[in-house]
C-alpha cells in the first residue's frame, strides 16, 4: 500500500526545496560564525556594557524557541514599516539564532585556552588583538570545532520551521507535494531521509574542512 512512485513527478520540487534549504543554511552559517567570533571576544574583553548586552542577547536567544524568534521578526518588522521578504526574515532569524549559540560556544573555547599561552604571547610582544588571533583563537576553534559543527547542523534542521512563513525550502516542498498527491506518509519519509542525508553530508564536510584547517594542531597534540 506504500507508493513511493507517486512522488516521482515531483522530484523537481524536492530538489528545489533542498537547494533552498542548503543555501539559506550556508548563508546563515557563514554570517553567524563571522559575527560570533568578534562577539565572543567582546563578550570576554569588550567594554562592560557591550559585554553585558551581548550576554543578554545570547541568553534571550538560547532560552526561547526558534519559531517564536522567527514570528517576532516576520510579523514584527512590518509593524515597524520594514517590508522584507519571507526569505530575508528567515535568514535574519537563522543568523541571529546561530550567532547566539556560536558566541557562547566560542567564548567557552577561548576561556579554556590556558592563561600561560596568552602570557607567553604578551611576553613575546604581541598586542592583545594579535595574541587573540594567533594564540587563542585557532586553538580554541579547533577544540570547539565539533560543538560548532553540531550547532550548524541544528540550524539546518531548524530551517524546516521557516516553511511556516512560506519560504519554499524542503519542508515547504514536502507540504506542497503531499497536498497534491495525498501521500503524506511517503512524502514525509522521503523528506526526512533528505534531511538525514544533508545532516550526514554536512558533518562529513565539516570533518574534512576541520582536518584541513586544524590537522597540524591535532598532530601536535599527539
Amino acid at each position, binding site marked *: *500500500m506504500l507508493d513511493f512512485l507517486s512522488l516521482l513527478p515531483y522530484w523537481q520540487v524536492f530538489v528545489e526545496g533542498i537547494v533552498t534549504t542548503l543555501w539559506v543554511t550556508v548563508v546563515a552559517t557563514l554570517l553567524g560564525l563571522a559575527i560570533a567570533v568578534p562577539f565572543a571576544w567582546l563578550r570576554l574583553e569588550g567594554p562592560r556594557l557591550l559585554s553585558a548586552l551581548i550576554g543578554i542577547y545570547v*541568553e*534571550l536567544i*538560547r*532560552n*526561547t*524557541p*526558534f*519559531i*517564536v*524568534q522567527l*514570528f*517576532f521578526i516576520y*510579523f*514584527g518588522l*512590518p*509593524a515597524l514599516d520594514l517590508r522584507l521578504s519571507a526569505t530575508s526574515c528567515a535568514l535574519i532569524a537563522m543568523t541571529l539564532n546561530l550567532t547566539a549559540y556560536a558566541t557562547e560556544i566560542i567564548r567557552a573555547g577561548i576561556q579554556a585556552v590556558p592563561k600561560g599561552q596568552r602570557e607567553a604571547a604578551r611576553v613575546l610582544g604581541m598586542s592583545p588583538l594579535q595574541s587573540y588571533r594567533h594564540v587563542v583563537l585557532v586553538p580554541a576553534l579547533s577544540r570547539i570545532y565539533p560543538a560548532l559543527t553540531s550547532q550548524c*547542523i541544528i540550524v539546518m*534542521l*531548524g*530551517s*524546516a*520551521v521557516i*516553511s*511556516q512563513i512560506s519560504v519554499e525550502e524542503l*519542508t515547504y516542498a*514536502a*507540504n506542497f507535494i*503531499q497536498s497534491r498527491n*495525498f*501521500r*503524506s*506518509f511517503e*512524502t*514525509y*519519509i522521503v*523528506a*526526512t531521509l533528505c*534531511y*538525514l542525508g544533508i*545532516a*550526514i553530508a554536512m558533518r562529513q564536510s565539516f570533518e574534512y574542512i576541520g582536518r584541513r584547517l586544524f590537522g597540524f594542531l591535532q598532530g601536535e597534540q599527539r
Partner: protein
Amino acid sequence: MIDFTLWDILGHLLRALRWTLALSIIAFVGGGLVGALLTWWRTSQIKALQLLVRGYVELFQGTPLLMQLFLIFFGLSALGINLSAWTAATIALTLFTSAFVCDIWRGSIEAIPAGQWQAARVLGMSRLQTLRHVVLGQAVRIAIAPTVGFSVQVIKGTALASVIGFTELTRTATMLNNAAFMPFTIFGLLALCYFCLCYPLSRYARYLEKRLDVHGSR
C-alpha cells in the same frame, strides 16, 4: 480588529502555558524512560541492539523535529492511524527526547574510567552489578547537568506542536495575533513566557556543571 489590553493577552498566554508545561513534562519523563531503555540497549554487549539504537539516535538527531511531528501526525493519518494533535505531539517529543538523553547518558557511562570496571570485575562483580553499584552512581553525577540543560530544548521543542494545531503557548499567540494585530507585544510576551520557563533551567544546568567541576575530583 479586536482591541486587547496587555492583561488580556497575558491572561490568554498564561492559560495556554499549562499545556506547554504539560507537554514538556510528559515528553521529558516519557523520553527519560524510553531513553533509559535505549541507553541500556546501547551499552549492552549485543551488537545488533547497539546498532539499532545508534541508528535510532542518528535518525532523530539528524532530522528536524518538525518533520518528526508531520510524519507522526499527517503521515500516520494517511496510513489510517488517526492521532489527535496532542497524542502526536506527545509521541514525537517523547521519541525526540529519548534519542537525545540516550546520547547524553551513554556518553556519561562511557566517561567512567576503565579502571572502575576492572576493579569491580576483579572483586567478582558481574556486568550488571558493576553497572548498578559502581558505574551508575558516578555516571548520574556527570549526566545531570547536560540532562537538565536538555530539558530546555524539550520546552522549546513543544512550540512546534503549534504547527500541527495543538493549542499551547505559541499557537495561542499566533491566534491572538491574527485577531488583534499586535505582533511586538504578543510575540514579545510569548518570548518572555518561554524565557521565564527556560532561563532558570539553563542557569541551574550551568550551576550543576560548575559544582561538578569543583567537586569533580572526589
